[in-house]
């Protein structure tokens, strides 16, 4: 009896501890005003050449999550003392949490300055651009169009053009499959493909996962939407933009403009373990290995660079 009871109590205590631990590090923002939060990384003292140790917590962009997870696995294999945890939650969550020092790394599809309204907070963050994601306009294969100009895309996404025949395609009503207004992918598409923000149109469809977007575009007659290059396959028709094909080579050469960096933000300069992890991302091993393998474009290969304001300069 006694054994049983203490066992139940131990269980409750553990769950309570686990709960409070969650509150501190993790998923939730409930502790924003606690003040007592410390970054999760506890870097033990290392003299020169000593092994790395400590734990690293990263959260944010679900688009970047698979890459960070895979690279983290490799990094942990090479450094037994390091524990890296990667959580999703979205770019906004990642930026909020890194700026509140709840996580060590905040993953984001957009520049922090675009999301964080507080410029001072954004200025504290240090940007590490680890990969590039390009986004292509795609349509249902039966729409009968290969290429759209910027103006045609703008007209479609603002509801001026409502039938594919107006842009040389089949006589078929256009069905827009959008991403939610706050999505990083949508922000990238609007800034660099359309050059303008669009409002949600009546009757348009919004889906949040790229997989669902692809499924909907492939199945819905007359559908148009946009997807990262890594998601493209034969079930949807990839549209050229102003005659330029969305390909990795065109993105790298700066010919195809609809792309964005994948950012890994730290709050101030990272500690030794976090820095080693971020540096590892930029090694050739990762850039030409994991990055390409998972369908991203290596940041190191880019022949152009782009700043917060969107100005593109040759490297």
């Amino acid at each position: 009896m006694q054994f049983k009871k203490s066992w139940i109590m131990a269980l409750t205590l553990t769950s309570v501890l686990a709960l409070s631990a969650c509150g501190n590090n993790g998923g939730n923002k409930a502790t924003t005003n606690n003040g007592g939060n410390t970054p999760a990384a506890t870097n033990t003292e290392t003299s020169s050449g000593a092994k790395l140790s400590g734990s690293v917590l990263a959260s944010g962009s679900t688009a970047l999550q698979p890459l960070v997870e895979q690279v983290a696995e490799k990094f942990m294999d090479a450094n037994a003392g390091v524990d890296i945890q990667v959580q999703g939650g979205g770019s906004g969550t990642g930026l909020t949490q890194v700026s509140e020092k709840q996580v060590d790394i905040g993953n984001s599809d957009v520049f922090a300055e675009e999301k964080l309204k507080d410029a001072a907070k954004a200025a504290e963050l240090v940007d590490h651009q680890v990969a590039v994601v390009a986004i292509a306009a795609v349509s249902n294969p039966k729409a009968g169009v290969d290429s759209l100009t910027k103006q045609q895309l703008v007209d479609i996404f603002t509801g001026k053009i409502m039938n594919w025949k107006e842009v040389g395609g089949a006589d078929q009503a256009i069905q827009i499959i959008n991403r939610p207004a706050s999505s990083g992918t949508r922000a990238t598409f609007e800034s660099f493909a359309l050059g303008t923000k669009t409002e949600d149109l009546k009757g348009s469809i919004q889906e949040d996962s790229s997989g669902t977007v692809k499924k909907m575009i492939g199945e819905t007659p007359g559908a148009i939407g946009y997807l990262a290059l890594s998601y493209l396959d034969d079930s949807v028709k990839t549209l050229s933009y102003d005659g330029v094909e969305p390909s990795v080579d065109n993105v790298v050469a700066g010919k195809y403009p609809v792309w964005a960096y994948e950012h890994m933000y730290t709050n101030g300069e990272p500690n030794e373990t976090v820095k080693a992890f971020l540096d590892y991302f930029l090694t050739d091993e990762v850039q030409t290995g994991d990055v390409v393998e998972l369908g991203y474009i290596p940041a190191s290969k880019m022949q152009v660079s782009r700043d917060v304001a969107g100005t593109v300069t040759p490297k």
Partner: protein
Amino acid sequence: MRGQPTNKRLEKHHIENLIGRIYMSFCVLLLIVIIVSMVYFVASKGVANFVSGEVKVSEFLFGTKWSPEADTPSYGAFPFISGSFLVTLLAALIASPLSICAALFMTEIVPGWGKKLLQPVIELLSGIPSVVYGFVGLSVIVPFLRDTLPGQGIGVAAGALVLSVMILPTITSVAADALASLPQNLKESSFALGATRWQTISRVILPTTFPAIMTGVVLGMARAFGEALAVQMVIGNAPFVPHSLFESASTLTSVITLGMGNTTMGSPQNNALWSMALVLMLMTFVFVLLVRMLERRNRI
């Protein structure tokens, strides 16, 4: 010699009693703290926009324009509030007759094998994760609606259909319990008066158990109102009040799940999402109150 063990046992009982009481009080206190802090957290976040004057309450509740990313953002949540009510009511309308028939079948018509067969099957429905419902909706219901009815298949009707399947088990199990607990003599008297089975069901059983069945319907609606993922996948999520059942619309939950991860904490848009969470929470209170009222009627 004989007194000592009794004393010891008594002492042991006291200690066990004390430990039990402390443990129980601790758990209850923890529970209360968790509930109060959750309510406080959602409420304080939810009213942040109204307190700071960013958004007016009336504009939030009745505004029909939702464009948080625009240069002059507007935070009208009426399309989502109406969308939530619309799919919930439709789902209840579809699911209630099915559930009540299933419950009658299990308790009145074929209590033996009917119950043995139907009950586990219906309970199975409540164990399926909502993402599976969403995907089935997307792969089966949406193409079906697209091929047979106007519109793109995605929309209010698809959402209501998916939800109605999801709330079937809730309504059925509550209704079946209510029917099973009906005093036997009511039915026997009815039969003694020469009433047929259908007359007994429609004139005696259903009217007597009506409040209890309604409890099940309200519980089902509460579930439908709060369901997020499955609805989000099939409803389309365009921020407009739909003019037809086959048009893309949004619910409170779908907008919250779409926007929460992509907005930063403390931004007006994020706070507007918390305001929607507050509306959801208040609606849940209303549903709980309704259930309580129905239970009270039930007792008489």
